[in-house]
């Protein structure tokens, strides 16, 4: 990093559980060249992964956003003993409820509603699964969007929720796509279809299909899975907690 004054900004965007390691050798090198300056001559902010330039921009915020995204993606792809599935996760009665979904499917909104209803917070981005099919916390702040705005970050405590600490077995997989005006009347999925749905949201599905399928099999063989369109998050959250009780 070329400017120590942005160190705090960078540190706030490091992945959950990051630790400082004073080692001279690194596996991956990221370089942030901070630009800026006043007047007519403004230097660009540059971000590199090794020798590859990831972004070249006049906006430091954009460079930091790319950095955060790159780090998160790298962790999800390279974690040796964990499988990352794109899903929101909450804990309820000693089990986890997984809400897989693509971006803008309303995952974070539903997670927030589940937290307000008393569930504990595990993640609004990734279900981090171990080989036994248990979910571990990936508790970054929730990113709630409003219309076309960039998401604002809120801590689960602001919603009156606790953060989950221990790994949990999966108790329910709920594929709930937001559809204004819909009522939550989900259909049950067979284990095979549930596995297919989870695989569609798994980061390393292509690079590690054997591990991914074996891990997901442990999830779907124990937890029921449902799929449907949902309307308001509050109503769906109540129904999901009821189903998982």
């Amino acid at each position, binding site marked *: 990093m070329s400017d120590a004054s942005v160190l705090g900004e960078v540190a706030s965007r490091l992945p959950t559980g990051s630790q400082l390691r004073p080692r001279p050798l690194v596996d991956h090198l990221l370089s942030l060249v901070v630009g800026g300056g006043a007047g007519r001559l403004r230097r660009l902010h540059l971000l590199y992964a090794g020798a590859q330039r990831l972004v070249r921009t006049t906006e430091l915020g954009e460079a930091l956003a790319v950095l955060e*995204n790159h780090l998160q993606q790298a962790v999800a792809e390279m974690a040796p003993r964990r499988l990352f599935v794109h899903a929101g996760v909450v804990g309820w009665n000693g089990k986890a409820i997984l809400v897989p979904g693509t971006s803008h499917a309303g995952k974070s909104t539903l997670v927030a509603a589940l937290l307000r209803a008393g569930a504990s917070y595990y993640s609004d981005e990734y279900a981090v699964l171990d080989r036994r099919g248990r979910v571990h916390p990936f508790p970054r702040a929730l990113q709630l969007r409003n219309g076309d705005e960039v998401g604002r970050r809120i801590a689960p405590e602001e919603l009156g929720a606790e953060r989950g600490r221990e790994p949990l077995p999966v108790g329910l997989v709920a594929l709930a796509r937001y559809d204004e005006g819909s009522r939550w009347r989900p259909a049950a999925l067979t284990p*095979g279809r549930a596995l297919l749905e989870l695989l569609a949201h*798994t980061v390393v*599905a292509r690079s590690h299909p054997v591990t991914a*399928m074996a891990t997901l099999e442990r999830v779907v063989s124990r937890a029921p899975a449902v799929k449907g369109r949902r309307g308001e998050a509050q109503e769906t959250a109540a129904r999901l907690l009821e189903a998982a009780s």
Partner: protein
Amino acid sequence: MSKQGKQDGGRPRKRQEGLVVQELPEEMLVYDTDRHKAHCLGPVAAAVWEACNGRRSAAQIAARVTAKLGQAVPVESVWLSLRRLGRARLLEAGTALPAGPRLGSRREWLKRAAALGGFSLSVLSITAPAAAQAATCTPQTTCSGLQNRLCTGAPCCTTGPNPAPPGTTCKKVGNQNNCSCAP
């Protein structure tokens, strides 16, 4: 050739190279590492696929599947399953499928499949996501509505109502005031 002889003509063989198989109590998941597609085979489709050794006719496959599942599986179900397995490229290339009844339209096939027990014959397929596709993505419409300082840097969504080209991220491009999905 007699009608029966024609129906027994093909001897389908299941593909074995480039596949990862995960068995479930009633279904089977097959991942095609060449095409990065995952297939979920219903109980009959899974049993039919397993029985395709290149030496059995449709009638023989039906008999074997009937014995395995403990329920009568008509040869029609085998035809329908083979047709679906072939489309999913889970049979050896060049395999001659047993000739089935002449059903003209896709609707007729679907009606016949439903009558024979749709789920058990089903072969559901998805394309596995590339790593970046499984990450949070920014819809193209959202991205282009953001001012430069708010570009997310995330991959742009390649699905949905206004899909972006694959491999693009939401970033500032040139001197534009708003972000764009660009490589």
